[in-house]
């Protein structure tokens, strides 16, 4: 590859890491192409393929990388061209033989290219590589059903307000709830239940909020009281690869927003004055939520979530049972942070 040069050891380290975290069904080969060094083929139902451009750690600030992005941006992508594969950037640390990886060129609806600049890079590990695989697979023109653990309902809470400096700001809180708990192996009985539940959700016109969703909405209203209007959007089901693609596209629209993982801590209502009773009760922690919000809300401000405790309407007598219920329900929350790249 002429645009970004990499020595063979760097390529071999990248290939080794791709094999390590890519599972037993991938095949990595070196290719003679100007946009990427390695072509990864995955032996799955839609024959997923993606290109990998490999570089060393100092590349992001270099002219060569800017030139590469220029080429990606100016390139004419024609429909149905087999060359149209997603491209991932792998930045290799040759000393520690580790790497960071992210999507450099993505595809929406298999025809519209998206060049990610700035790119979201994360340390290569099983978790991140699995998420990237889901994203890359979603870019394929073949629509496939997501695996059962990812079948979920996307919950979106919109924030619109005016900051005290007079500027309008907007934000969004995102999370997803799995439809069914993770089933390692479907038996005849669970399979039937699974099909019934899935069918019910697909044809359901609206997904009802449960106690957990209501608490999250209420906490959001308290957090942004007198600052922003808080409204919940219609829920959306994450069912196929194209739904993940939509989510990815939504993430692209939120490009200028600051992105944080947030959590809410909940305590019961207690009518005791003057006592420091809070220290005797373990708050319920609701996490796996992603907040995308415009300036002036930044990273420092996001830490206010870590120390703030909200009070639920549930009183102390019912708290033990209620916390058990919410803790169990919170297991069904899926973190969408990594899909908003």
């Amino acid at each position: 590859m002429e645009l970004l040069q990499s020595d063979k050891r760097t390529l071999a380290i990248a290939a080794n890491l791709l094999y390590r975290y890519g599972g037993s069904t991938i095949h990595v080969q070196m290719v003679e192409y100007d946009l990427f060094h390695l072509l990864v083929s995955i032996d799955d139902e839609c024959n997923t393929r993606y290109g990998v451009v490999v570089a060393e750690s100092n590349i992001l600030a270099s002219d060569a990388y800017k030139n590469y992005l220029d080429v990606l941006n100016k390139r004419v992508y024609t429909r149905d061209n087999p060359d149209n594969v997603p491209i991932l950037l792998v930045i290799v640390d040759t000393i520690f033989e580790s790497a960071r990886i992210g999507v450099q060129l993505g595809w929406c609806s298999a025809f519209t290219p998206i060049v990610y600049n700035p790119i979201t890079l994360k340390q290569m590990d099983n978790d991140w590589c699995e998420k990237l695989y889901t994203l890359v697979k979603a870019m394929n023109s073949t629509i496939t059903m997501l695996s059962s653990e990812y079948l979920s309902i996307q919950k979106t809470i919109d924030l619109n307000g005016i900051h005290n400096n007079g500027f309008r700001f907007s934000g969004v809180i995102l999370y997803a709830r799995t439809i069914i708990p993770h089933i390692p192996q479907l038996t005849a009985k669970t399979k039937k239940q699974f099909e019934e539940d899935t069918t019910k959700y697909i044809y359901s016109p609206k997904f009802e909020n449960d106690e957990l969703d209501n608490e999250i909405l209420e906490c959001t209203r308290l957090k942004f009281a007198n600052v922003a209007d808080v409204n919940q959007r219609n829920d959306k089901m994450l069912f196929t690869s194209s739904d993940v693609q939509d989510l990815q596209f939504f993430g692209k629209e939120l490009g200028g927003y600051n992105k944080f993982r947030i959590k809410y801590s909940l305590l019961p209502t207690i009518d005791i004055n003057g006592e420091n009773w809070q220290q005797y009760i373990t708050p319920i922690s609701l996490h796996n939520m992603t907040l995308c919000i415009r300036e002036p809300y930044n990273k420092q401000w996001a830490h206010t979530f870590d120390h703030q405790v909200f009070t639920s309407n549930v009183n102390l007598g019912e708290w033990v049972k209620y916390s058990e219920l919410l803790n169990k329900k919170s297991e069904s929350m899926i973190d969408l942070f990594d899909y908003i790249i």
Partner: protein
Amino acid sequence: MNNRLSPQLLQSQSQIVVEKETINKNALGSRGEAIAYVRLTEGYRFNLYFMGEKAQTIDYLLELRDKNAPFFAFLQVKTTAQHEFTQAGQLKVGISTHDLGLLINKPLPTYFVGVDEIEESVYIAPLFSDTIHGYTSSIPKKYKLEHMPSEENKKVIAKLEKDIICFSKVVKTRKLKYKTKMPI
């Protein structure tokens, strides 16, 4: 600038099916070759050239980077995903008797490289010593490259480098008086 992708990406659907069948078969071998490449190039003492699928019995041509001693060696890489060892602690990965014979007869120093895919470690054994007992089922653990860069790895690589130099120097000394049969 090359604007066309390699022919692999332009293949027809039937070719994809055929390729799919071979992917799993070759994936372990490819992974092992990548692991071996990374481990053997630790410290940048060697250049490794992949010989391609069609090269019989040889996977890599190894070249010393030292300009004063630009010697070569052949490597045969075999990978196992079983992570099993013999009672003597040898990694259970073998080379066929036929390949072993071909490699021993090569005019360059040849090494058998066993890769433990689970541990990502690499074992090296020379195929030109008098003490070869045959590596048809396992490879000794004496010259092992750990899965990450380490001082021990450096020592093994230094030993390999010295071994190749010594072999080549001995061969060169013996052939010093040879006159070409293709005079110009």
